[in-house]
């Protein structure tokens, strides 16, 4: 097989593996818009990375993590509704990113690959970053799994039973930020949330426990990556959007199953 296709496949599968369980929390906790906000701020990360001449991956991850922490702090103030806050942050970060990029006149930034992903140009270094990031995220999710489920079901009950809800929630936000930063390479800023929520929604139809839903979501995301890449290879469609379309088709297929539980 050709190297770049193998790299693309490995990168996609790595991200898909962690997108499954994380996507479940995004669906259960209705955080889809939160994912969008972080994804939009990734563009600002790219712009700042170019401006300050630091590694783009590090710049994007740093901006996403800072954005997540900022949101946690703002949410606790409780001045505005969360969706309003997210809207403000999301669009100002996107606008700021676009403005800064336009100011960097001497450097061309490939906007298309930022917005829609550039899976076919994955390098060995990218693979390392993706697998390290995905590995850290999966280990953290597994370690915190029970607390995460508990605060998702009923935060006050969890708090009374001795879980530090604020800390666990912050951890989840940071994990989300980390995964979004590494997933950007795969499907791009605009489609990241789709990769998180569509496989999880697909898995819901055929899952009776939180764990089976997480695993099935991972597998669904992996199948989407493989079929999306295949479509990209054989009929020459853009890889990122093809992956999302595959995920959507799988979701449509899942509708024919009777809801489990």
């Amino acid at each position, binding site marked *: 097989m050709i190297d770049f296709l193998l790299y693309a496949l490995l990168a996609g599968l790595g991200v898909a593996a962690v997108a499954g369980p994380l996507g479940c929390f995004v*669906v259960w906790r209705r955080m889809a818009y939160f994912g969008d906000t972080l994804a939009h701020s990734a563009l600002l990360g790219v712009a700042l990375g170019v401006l300050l001449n630091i590694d783009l991956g590090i710049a994007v991850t740093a901006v996403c993590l800072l954005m997540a922490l900022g949101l946690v702090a703002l949410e606790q103030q409780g001045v505005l509704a969360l969706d309003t806050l997210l809207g403000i942050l999301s669009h100002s970060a996107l606008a700021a990113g676009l403005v800064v990029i336009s100011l960097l006149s001497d450097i061309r930034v490939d906007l298309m690959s930022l917005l829609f992903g550039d899976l076919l140009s994955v390098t060995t270094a990218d693979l390392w970053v993706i697998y390290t990031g995905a590995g850290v995220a999966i280990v953290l999710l597994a370690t915190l799994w029970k607390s995460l489920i508990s605060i998702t079901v009923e935060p006050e009950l969890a708090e009374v039973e001795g879980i530090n809800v604020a800390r666990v929630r912050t951890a989840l936000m940071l994990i989300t930020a980390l995964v979004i930063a590494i997933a950007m390479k795969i499907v791009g800023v605009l489609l990241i949330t789709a990769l998180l929520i569509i496989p999880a929604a697909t898995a819901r139809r055929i899952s009776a426990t*939180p764990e089976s839903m997480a695993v099935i979501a991972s597998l669904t995301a992996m199948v989407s990556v493989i079929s999306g890449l295949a479509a990209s290879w054989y009929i020459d469609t853009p890889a990122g959007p093809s992956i999302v379309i595959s995920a959507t088709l799988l979701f449509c297929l899942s509708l024919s199953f009777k809801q489990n*539980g």
Partner: protein
Amino acid sequence: MNKPLIRLQSVSKTYSDKPILQNISMEINKGEITTIIGPNGAGKSSLIRIILGLITPDQGTIEKSANLTVGYMPQKVNIDPTLPISTCRFLQLANTSHQECHKALDLVGIPEVKDTPFHKLSGGEMQRALLARSILRKPNLLVLDEPVQGVDFSGQNELYGLIGELRSSLNCGIVMVSHDLHLVMSATDHVICLNHHICCQGKPEQVTQDPAYLDIFGETALYNHQHNHQHSLQGKVLDADGNHQHGEGCQHD
């Protein structure tokens, strides 16, 4: 007399300049059922949250006994239907084994729902399942926020009977919130009538004779005001001219 499980002294809480709780002093003892009653917006939930340690009061002190383990039954749990979780699994979130969950479900009378998805439970089953979870950690203090909400009349009686049994089998103190004293009467030892401040408190039969209680709840109809002070819409204590006045049943200063 043993030390109380928890003692609140002159506790006050204000939300954005609006006093929700004023000068609340109360204690909960082992083996005793305390019922907090009061109209909507009287601060019942805030008081419960202070007892649970979920919010901290602006003023006043809270003393807890050293070995305090709290079981909490929230008013309602809204699980997103996208989260597939069986009732048994929901109970296990309290860090207990499978067998203990089954035992708890047996105890509250719904052993048949252990594999039912939690979000598909009926109102009565949901309340029982929440009660089952609250007792799993062998608490010596049970905090129940409107435990019979959404349950039909005969179910309410059964639930109160069950709560009374739990008091003796767990030998715990119980504090619960209720709208309606008539139903709770037989199942409670101590009543606190709350409307931002403690209007009156005592044994249920005393409280039902108290002018402050009658003022808020009336003898038959709820909210039939006729007592020594009136409440403004915000719950402030007013006299006939609409000014603040203190009466016998009024314990704040």
